């Protein structure tokens, strides 16, 4: 006889087993009533947006940018893809052609495309570009006011397709302000903003769009935004490349990295912006149709950003080039790469990111020079470069990662980089001794007889990969006899970086276009004119506060030549040689972003084999992938 209690237990178990199958379909809360074959779900790495209903990107630091606004709805004159681009890295977007400067770079003339329309049916013209400048110059508290007021004397729109910028001083790179590398100065709709009393306090909700998508709905609590393909998508600049695949885009906050992995394993997040290397390994193993930029190791997309150790060269010890080089030669980059990315990194010995066009423009052509580069320690002459470091990393990885680690030299160079500086304690010792430092037991002492203390600032769990790299470097410096200390800044890093309140930190001061060889994007801000005195805030990006007359000369020479002038590469090489000699920062590797793409519902994502766009979800440039995506069968 079966008791009632047994019956109840059996019924409860049967219900429990049946429920998952019954409820799984709508378990995690994907948008209601939108078929998955029409919907692409992407991560908004800004997370939950506090003032969700704010779409005025021209107001300073208000609202979200990467909630789809700059990827799906806004547009500007040009784009440079960090990869190869659909039709080349350079794309004339709202502009019909490249910018035309006069001889002394005090005037920039732009021809615009015709037949492009705002989502409310108003035609886009030169008046919108002029208004973008005039409104922001007139209202000094807007996002791009300072840049525009600083550069533009006047802007004219003589006809609907022509804009003429008169500049206050020669600037051969003024167009960079209207060229998307992640973001840029976006063009605003004159017909909307001219009716607004205070454009800095206008929320622009609902936004009028100039690109292929328009706002469908959003969460007032800032967790998600849904964008819908415009019916007249052909009347946008993206229409040149065909109809975008997804009818709807959802930019969502999926939560911390572990939840992003779960969401993609549940096929509820098509594109993850970034996760930890371990999360990527898990997806590669268990996500049946998930993959990263590379089909196997090292998975991540190398951003055109160079991660490295930034020295504060206003620090008494770090003013000395010998000390900076000694600290470099104490590092075993293989251990750093293994600690930070579990080996999934692309290393660079020179201060240019090893990604996009740069390996062809700088790394490979300069390989011979780097191999011959010599340091005179005073006691010996050493050639510190080891061209086999990337290969050594692959050899270390192969036992655990197997066949996915390439053997082909070209493939290794493409994925893992070339060589790096060989750890050389003897040369480091000789350099420190020449700088007046003495070893007392196992401890290095400064010239004035105190222990050599050096802090390395990291962001902590806000940026775990870089923190792991920093921790490994501190360990290596300590093993070499420096009293190195990890300095966890957490959220204060940005404030302390600007204030110069650090000895050294893990971060980046070198960011490039990626798809273009010109280095002025970051280098112009390294001119000595912009270096702040100790204790004063430093404008971006020369966080190392390093000055050198030769560097100023290179920067001034670049300012005098056209953006595409081949001389720019030669000047870029001069910069590489100078920075290699002086070592104001220790280049480590590109900033790899583990963007994971799930091919369950969509195919045609950009990859290392088909690098037509940058898939990293918060980049404005990621819009190009929408036109190549197709629903999976």
């Amino acid at each position, binding site marked *: 006889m079966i008791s009632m209690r047994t019956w109840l237990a059996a019924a409860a178990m049967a219900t429990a087993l049946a429920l998952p199958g019954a409820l799984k379909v709508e378990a995690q809360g994907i948008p209601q009533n939108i078929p998955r074959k029409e919907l692409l779900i992407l991560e908004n790495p800004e997370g939950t947006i506090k003032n969700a209903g704010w779409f005025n990107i021209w107001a300073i630091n208000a609202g979200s940018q990467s909630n789809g606004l700059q990827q799906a709805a806004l547009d500007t004159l040009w784009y440079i893809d960090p990869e190869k681009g659909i039709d080349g890295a350079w794309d004339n977007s709202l502009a019909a052609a490249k910018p035309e400067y006069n001889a002394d770079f005090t005037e920039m003339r732009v021809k615009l495309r015709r037949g492009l329309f705002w989502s409310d049916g108003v035609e886009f013209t030169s008046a919108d570009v002029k208004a973008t400048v005039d409104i922001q110059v007139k209202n000094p508290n807007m996002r791009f006011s300072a*840049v525009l007021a600083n550069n533009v004397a006047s802007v004219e729109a003589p006809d609907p397709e022509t804009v003429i910028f008169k500049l206050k001083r020669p600037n051969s790179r003024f167009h960079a302000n209207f060229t998307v590398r992640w*973001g840029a100065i976006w063009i605003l709709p004159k017909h909307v903003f001219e009716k607004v009393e205070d454009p800095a306090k206008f929320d622009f909700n609902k936004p009028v769009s100039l690109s292929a998508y328009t706002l469908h709905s959003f969460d007032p609590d800032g967790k*998600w935004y849904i964008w819908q393909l415009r019916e007249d998508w052909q009347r946008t600049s993206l229409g040149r490349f065909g109809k975008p695949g997804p009818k709807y885009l959802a930019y969502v906050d999926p939560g911390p990295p572990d939840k992003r992995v*779960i969401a993609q394993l549940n096929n509820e997040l098509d594109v993850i912006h970034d996760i930890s290397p371990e999360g990527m390994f898990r997806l590669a193993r268990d996500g049946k149709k998930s993959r990263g930029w590379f089909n196997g190791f090292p998975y991540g997309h190398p951003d055109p950003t160079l991660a490295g150790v930034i020295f504060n060269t206003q620090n008494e010890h770090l003013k000395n080039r010998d000390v900076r080089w000694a600290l470099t030669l104490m590092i075993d980059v293989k251990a750093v790469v293994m600690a930070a990315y579990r080996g999934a990194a692309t290393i660079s010995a020179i201060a240019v990111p090893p990604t996009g066009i740069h390996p062809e423009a700088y790394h490979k052509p300069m390989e011979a020079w780097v191999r011959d580069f010599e340091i005179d320690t005073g006691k010996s002459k050493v050639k510190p470069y080891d061209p086999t470091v990337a290969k050594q990393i692959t050899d270390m990885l192969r036992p655990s990662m197997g066949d996915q680690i390439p053997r082909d030299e070209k493939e290794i160079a493409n994925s893992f980089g070339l060589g790096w500086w060989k750890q050389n304690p003897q040369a480091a010792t000789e350099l420190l001794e020449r700088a007046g430092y003495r070893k007392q037991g196992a401890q290095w002492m400064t010239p004035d007889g105190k222990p050599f203390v050096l802090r390395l600032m990291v962001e902590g769990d806000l940026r775990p990969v870089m923190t792991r790299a920093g921790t490994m470097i501190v360990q290596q410096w300590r093993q070499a006899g420096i009293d190195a200390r990890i300095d966890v800044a957490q959220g204060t890093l940005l404030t302390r970086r600007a204030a110069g309140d650090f000895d050294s930190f893990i971060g980046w001061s070198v960011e490039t276009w990626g798809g273009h060889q010109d280095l002025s994007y970051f280098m112009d801000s390294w001119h000595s004119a*912009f270096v702040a005195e100790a204790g004063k805030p430093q404008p971006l990006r020369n966080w190392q506060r390093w000055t050198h007359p030769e560097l100023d000369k290179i920067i001034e020479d670049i300012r005098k030549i056209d953006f595409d002038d081949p001389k720019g590469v030669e000047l870029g090489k001069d910069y590489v040689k100078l920075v290699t000699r002086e070592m104001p920062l220790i280049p480590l590797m590109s900033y790899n972003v583990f963007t994971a793409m799930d091919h369950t519902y969509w195919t045609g994502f950009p990859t290392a084999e088909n690098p037509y766009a940058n898939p990293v979800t918060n980049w404005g440039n990621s819009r190009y992938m929408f036109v190549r995506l197709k629903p999976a069968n």
Partner: protein
Amino acid sequence: MRSYLHYALRRFAQFVLVVFIGINLAYVITHATPIDPVEQSIAAVTSFGNTAPEAIAEMRRSLQELYGLNGGWLEQYSTFWSRVLRADFGPSLSAFPAPVSSLIARALPWTLGLLGFATIVSWLLGNLLGGLAGYYQQNRSLKLLGVLAMALHPVPYYIVALALMIVFGFIWPLLPITGGSAMNLEQGWNLPFIISVAKHSILPALSLILIGVGSWFLGMRSLVSNIVTEDHVVYAEIAGVDPRRILGSYVMRNALAPQVTGLAMSLGGIFNGAVITEKVFGYPGVGTLLVDAVYAGDYGLVLGVTTVSILGVSLGVLLIDLLYPLIDPRVQVTT
């Protein structure tokens, strides 16, 4: 009655003083933050763009003016208090120019709903089961519950939250693991939205209830265990009074007084938000708002949330102090 009024006035004055000191402390601490909101904003605006260094100096000046950081500390302090008295905490620096009060107003209902529900359910369940376990000390099921409560009580609630997330979000994906409601639903008093909110709150609420129940359970069991040995309970048992009446009227009622105080303090504390639970489940409440504000150096928002929290806790304690003499005859007001 006169003595009660005197007591109430004195207690209210203490409340005002506590709130004043608390808000001032919060003001000093938030303004001592090493995070400069201007630099945070500049970094956010410029880190991905090509902004000329000379323009950044101008941007810095504009931001200081815009954020009202140019005046001296006395001017800023008096502006702050004049705003607090008008329940206006100024604009959020990290979501400029949205007013802090509107951000809190949007987040608060989520937190109040989630934590209010979790607190009351855990209090009711914990006290009921704890009372039973303290009275029926030989009952095996209640003993087992005691062991479970002891085991769960010391587990940090975020560990429970993570475990629930893995079990019900991934291994057995029954329930949503992020957000307050499903996407693309209109927020309001409509059935699909209400069902969605309820579904989204199950896991975060459960993570709080599982731990909360244990805590109330153990407290109540211990109180009841003491009361059952007191003379009036023993006499009632000897006199043959119905055990259910003894439990309800003689034991639980007496044991509840300190638990009610605890409940009032817990209800006051829910204005803080359950920071980690909200973070783990991506819940759009005050806790998430507070953490984001701290990282962004948005001290206007931190101050706003902290002030609401100080008021919540202080009001909770004030109310219970004022009510005690009225509901518990053992509490006497003395002048």
